[in-house]
């Protein structure tokens, strides 16, 4: 008499933190969640992209009811918003967690794949091949292994119930390429954070020719613009804009160099870029006591004067004198909106105007005058000399310690993609059985609904058949009919 007893395994209820951690972990590992996150990111990127276009306005014009939403859309800086930062963070964490989670399985498939398979798998595979030979199974399996190895396949085998199970694969290490690819995505984000945290960026660093400007950002450096030049082709199109600068510390020159658009100047970890240029005015301003309040060049351009909004202009506060100075140059394109030009300045002339600044200003009304280059004039208590016209250059200055991370990430990203796509892991399973007159081997690829893998397998079968000289046939199951087991057999011609 046989006694059977069912012993129920004692299960302890899991603690709440364990349940929470498990669920969070599974959320980050979920491919469905990752796809939704990428889709949300794509939608946010689309919203941010369209924000820089006229598309939202067109929608508002067609559907006036949407106007408030469209206004909100234009006002929303998507790429600096919390949802955008949130989804990026979520994706970065998901990539990290998912990668860690997949690592053991991938390594298992590479190092210790399961060798045994079933006749059902081989019979129902979309493509399979049958080889027959009049030799014992062990000898036939050995021949198959040799043929597969000659095509660069790794072959593993084990005996089960009198049958020999085969597992062969090629380019198994390509499965690891997913790690550098996903690591690269995290590194790019990390590079952005490193650059924003420990680097700096000056988008509009104005320097007139001959002037020195402090760089700031804790560098202790000054920059002098020695020369700015524009080179034009014969047809009048711009060939190059070039700035020659000297980097200084404590008033002493350290390094000089030139930059043009596309050819920045690197000084240590600081890079100078040519960004723009314009007209400047060299001025000397003294107060009634003869004290020099300003003796430098003032860039014209960032400021618009109501007297001629088209013309280059500048504004500067002279705090010690209690006035604000405006300078307006002649219109560079008199044909454009001439009705706006109330000044009608000629070449070599500029309008200088001072306005009251603060409660203790010595003047109560604006005072202005047109001055020719080289002339001096009295404006209120101030003596102003229009020394000469000059050029100014606009530089971009950046220090980004995240760049090496970005470069390394780029290499990993492209390399990871290339290995994943162009060296796919190809796998074949098989069983060699004994028959009345020798052995029968049935092989099939792991290639469900993978047309390329099936084609590679079919090529492999032809090559194996050629090497073995054994009788063989290729069995193709059409996916739709595989459930019924019907298929078609093809006898390859070797």
């Amino acid at each position, binding site marked *: 008499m046989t006694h059977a007893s069912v012993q129920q395994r004692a299960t302890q209820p899991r603690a709440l933190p364990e349940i929470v951690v498990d669920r969070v972990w599974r959320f980050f590992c979920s491919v469905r969640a990752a796809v939704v996150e990428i889709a949300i990111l794509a939608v946010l990127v689309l919203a941010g992209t369209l924000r*820089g276009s006229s598309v939202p306005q067109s929608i508002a014009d067609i559907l006036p009811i949407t106007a408030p939403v469209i206004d909100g859309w234009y006002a929303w800086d998507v790429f600096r918003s919390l949802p955008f930062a949130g989804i990026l963070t979520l994706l970065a964490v998901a990539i990290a967690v998912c990668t860690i989670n997949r690592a053991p399985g991938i390594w298992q498939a590479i190092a210790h794949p399961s060798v045994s398979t079933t006749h059902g798998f081989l019979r129902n595979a979309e493509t399979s091949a049958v080889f027959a030979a009049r030799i014992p199974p062990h000898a036939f399996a050995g021949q198959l292994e040799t043929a597969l190895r000659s095509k660069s396949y790794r072959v593993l085998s084990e005996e089960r119930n009198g049958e020999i199970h085969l597992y062969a694969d090629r380019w198994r290490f390509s499965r690891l390429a997913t790690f550098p690819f996903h690591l690269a995505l995290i590194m790019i984000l990390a590079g952005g954070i490193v650059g924003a945290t420990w680097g700096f960026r000056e988008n509009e660093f104005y320097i007139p020719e001959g002037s020195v400007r402090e760089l700031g950002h804790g560098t202790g450096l000054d920059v002098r613009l020695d020369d700015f030049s524009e080179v034009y082709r014969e047809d009048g199109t711009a060939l190059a804009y070039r700035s020659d600068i000297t980097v200084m510390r404590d008033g002493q020159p350290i390094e000089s160099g030139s930059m043009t658009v596309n050819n920045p100047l690197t000084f240590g970890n600081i890079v100078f870029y040519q960004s723009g240029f314009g007209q400047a005015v060299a001025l000397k301003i003294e107060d009634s006591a003869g004290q020099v309040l300003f003796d430098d060049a003032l860039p014209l351009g960032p400021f618009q004067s109501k007297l001629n909004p088209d013309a280059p202009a500048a504004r500067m506060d002279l705090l010690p004198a209690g006035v604000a100075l405006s300078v307006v140059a002649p219109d560079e394109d008199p044909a454009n909106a001439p009705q706006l030009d109330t000044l009608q300045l000629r070449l070599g002339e500029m309008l200088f105007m001072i306005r009251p600044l603060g409660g203790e200003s010595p003047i109560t009304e604006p005072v202005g005058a047109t001055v020719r280059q080289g002339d001096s004039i009295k404006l209120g208590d101030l003596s102003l000399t229009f020394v000469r016209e000059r050029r100014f250059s606009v530089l971009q200055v950046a220090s980004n310690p995240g760049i090496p991370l970005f470069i390394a990430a780029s290499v990993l990203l*492209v390399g990871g993609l290339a290995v994943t796509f162009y060296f796919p892991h190809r796998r074949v399973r098989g069983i060699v059985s004994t028959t009345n007159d020798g052995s029968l081997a049935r092989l099939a690829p792991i290639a469900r609904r993978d047309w390329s893998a099936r084609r590679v397998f079919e090529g492999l079968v032809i090559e194996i058949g050629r090497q073995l000289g054994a009788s063989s046939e290729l069995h193709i199951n059409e996916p739709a009919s595989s459930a019924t087991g019907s298929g078609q057999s093809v006898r390859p011609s070797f």
Partner: protein
Amino acid sequence: MESLVRLSFYCFAAATIAFVASAACYLAYAIGRVRLRQTALATSAGTTLVAHEASLEPAPLGIGRFATLLAWFGVAFQAASILFRTLAGGRLPLSNMYEFSCTFVLLAGVVYLLFERWYGVRQLGAIVLPLVVGMCAYIWLLPADLREVNALIPALQNRPLMTVHVSMAILAYATFAVAFAAAVLFLVANRWQVAWLPSPDLLDDLGYRAVTIGFPAMAMVLILGSVWAYRAWGTYWQWDPKETAALFTWLIYGVYLHTRSLRGWRGSRSAVILLVAFAAVVFTYFGNYVFGGLHAYGGV
């Protein structure tokens, strides 16, 4: 130089004619031909009943071969057009929408013909070649002054980076066009079971293979664009609309690849993602018309 530019345009005109003829042949080959059968039956009353039956049959193979030949002619003429323009300008024509589109037409033709050869699928041409013809029509509609070869503005004066960055973009768009065509044909083949269309599995694989070329190429576009941006503008990412549109496109193809490799999506669902992704490609391609931003000089 002017004669080379004119010669280049004449070659483009010849390529357009070849592509139009090729597209017509590919369409005829893919759709098949309608055969009308007439059956006469004599009745016991002495009258004759005539029955008409229309059926769709595969087009002759010859028309498919002729389509391929014409497509190769188109590619040869377009290659000559690009060569003459390169000689005229001393650089590859990639600096404005006219030049970009001319090079795209060439690459789309070449990429399609290579896929046709690898997979032996001619019916795909019924989608790709009309796209190419559409692009030719767009080029014809562009302002005539864009046909002149102009010197590069300072911002574009980085020939190695411009050549590789823009060429990669064109390669990516061309392969995505082939993937789109495969997706459309897949949906048709899957829906109507047309006997002479390629098997849905093959089309599904073809679309995937095209994306495995286009996706890394698009990644290279983003990376090289970032490297160039760093050299020219001082930052490798500016959130410029054209940049972000390219990123958007890349993300959609990323969704396609992830759903395919990790969730095992195949067939109709994958094909629909490819259609959406190609809409993103079109949006990125013609985005210059609605975007401002730092790529504005690359517009018309």
